[in-house]
């Protein structure tokens, strides 16, 4: 009988790479400014629409309704502003030889880990505000679902393309050769 090239070494549980030891790379400083600008634009547009609604639709000109809508708008805006800031501080990403990690969330902290050998494709995208600051996002897709598994936002355009190229190369050659 021909003996195949086979090995079955013992794996010590303590030797398995631990997720708690990963150091996450924070998002770019410019990204906070970009999300604040995007928030500002949305705030102005939504505020203008609300004011226009009360000015042009006379049936809505009821004092308590106006105070309520104004209060809700202000409260919601404050919540989004604080949420954006906290989310920015907590968010980060890490690239390991065999997986990509991304953490986010300001209220509920969530950490996603995506094995590289499960990635189907990667896309890089940037909106007008992101481009103004030289930023981009990398979306990483696996099978199934209806959207990207996760999107690393707030990294430089150069880094985003480097990540995309590096991951694409790993998918093609197999993670073992990384």
């Amino acid at each position, binding site marked *: 009988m021909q003996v195949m090239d086979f090995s079955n070494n013992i794996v010590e549980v303590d030797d398995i790479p631990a997720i708690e030891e990963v150091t996450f790379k924070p998002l770019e400083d410019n990204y906070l400014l970009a999300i604040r600008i995007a928030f500002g634009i949305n705030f102005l547009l939504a505020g203008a629409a609300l004011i226009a609604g009360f000015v042009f639709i006379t049936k809505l000109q009821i004092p308590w309704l106006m105070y309520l809508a104004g209060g809700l708008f202000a409260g919601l805006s404050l919540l989004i502003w604080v949420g954006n800031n906290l989310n920015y501080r907590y968010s980060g990403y890490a690239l390991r030889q065999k997986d990509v990690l991304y953490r986010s969330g300001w209220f509920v902290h969530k950490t996603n*880990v995506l094995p590289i050998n499960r990635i*189907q494709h990667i896309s890089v995208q940037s*909106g007008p505000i992101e481009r103004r600051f030289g930023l981009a996002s990398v979306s990483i897709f696996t099978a*199934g679902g209806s959207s990207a598994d996760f999107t690393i936002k707030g990294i430089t355009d150069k880094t985003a393309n480097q990540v995309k190229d590096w991951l694409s190369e790993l998918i093609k050659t197999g993670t073992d050769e990384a």
Partner: protein
Amino acid sequence: MKHDTPDFSVPQRQSAAAIVILIAKSGVQIAKSLWPILLVTLLRSKKGSSPDKYLYIIIGFAALSVGYAIIRFLFYRYYIQNNSLVIQTGWLQKKTLSIPLQSIQAVHLEQNLWQQAFGVSKVTFDSAGTEKVEAKMEAINVYTAEQLKQVLLQYKITTDTAEGRDAARPPVQYNLTIVDLLKLSLSANHLEAFLILFVLSINILDDLRKAFEFDGWGWMESIFGDMKDNMVALFSVVILLVVVVSVGFSVIRVFIKYYDFKMDSGGHQWRVSFGLFNRQQRIIPIPKIQLFSWHANYVRRKINFWMLDLKTLGDEKVQPKQRLKIPLTGFQSAVNIAASYQQSPVFDPAQGAGIEPAYWQRRTLMVSLPVTIFVAAFAAIWLQWQALCLLALLPVWALQNFMRYQNFKWFANHEGVQLHKGLWGREYKLLVWKKIQQVSYAQSPYQRRHQLATLQFTTAAGAVTLPYLPLEVCRRMVNGVLYTVESANEKWM
């Protein structure tokens, strides 16, 4: 006609005919987005108003469609580079999509009448994942499309041949008898059957009144009106009628759907055929099964009748009602079939691990309590102080949460994880580690304070969630599972 073989390493545009197809598509897309504005404009226009107005609207609409289509055409390019199909799209929002050739399962060329007229073909890809994004090509010259297909599929044939395939599994056969169909009918959801019938009856009575001026409601009132002096008899007749009709309807529905149900396995796939009038035959490739579960409501659990739910790739795009549910005449049948997915024996829930009691306590405090208060407060507007009775809902919901917590058991080993859960009914769920696409864990502020976490394993057809685990256990699971998935490099499909 002789064609030059296209060089796919150089960025290519779609055929010029794509502009026409994109104009039509853009027109539909713009119409979908702007239809409220168009509708309001048309409705508000007075009779006799200038026809120029409509002409301007149509011209504006057409200009928008043409402009949008030209932009989409000009900024769309595709090429093959480093064994990846790269598609670049967008003008303001630029996007570069990179699909590794090894993940492309199949390439489809489609031609509708328009595409046939222009000698072009639509190209779509069966790649686990590409359907999520705009990865289709609207109009490629037929010859170029064929060449592209050959190039893309050649890569798959080469890699598949090199890697080989799993050994065939032993065959299993299974079918439903008339008695099984009766059991299935009697344990069905009769409330759902009754509601369907009720809505149908209202529509029929209404149609009869309109068509023949037949007063169906009056006719029913004349029959039941004679019994109004004897309320006990009236209630008994109505309840009996509802039960007989609902059960009868369920029996008919089940027989029409599952008549002559057969299931057998051959090699790498399950073949399922069923149906009385509309006979369906489905093939389920076993490697395509991502999650394996079977469940029973309270009645079915008592008569040992289970419904098998195979979550396969692409299931999330199918309506829940259209998904294939396989009736099983006993727990053991489910266990036997499960062996084709996970070789480890199905665990005994009594021996399984549980979750932290904070699960039911937090659910009660954060969900049940606010909902109870809201419902009671809302009801108080009409019922005054009697609405306080609704506060009795809280202990009922708390008890349900506690039962869910108690019934939630799980077991994990080197091959995968098994789950057992339910309130009155029960569900078993099996997941093999190699099917995992992504691992994630989340912590709410409460969970952070108490060192707890909710763990989730995502597959290509759904997820398995283990809520309220100790953080240490959660991390050990994440590390171990990632090691298994990443070191084995096994094919997940």
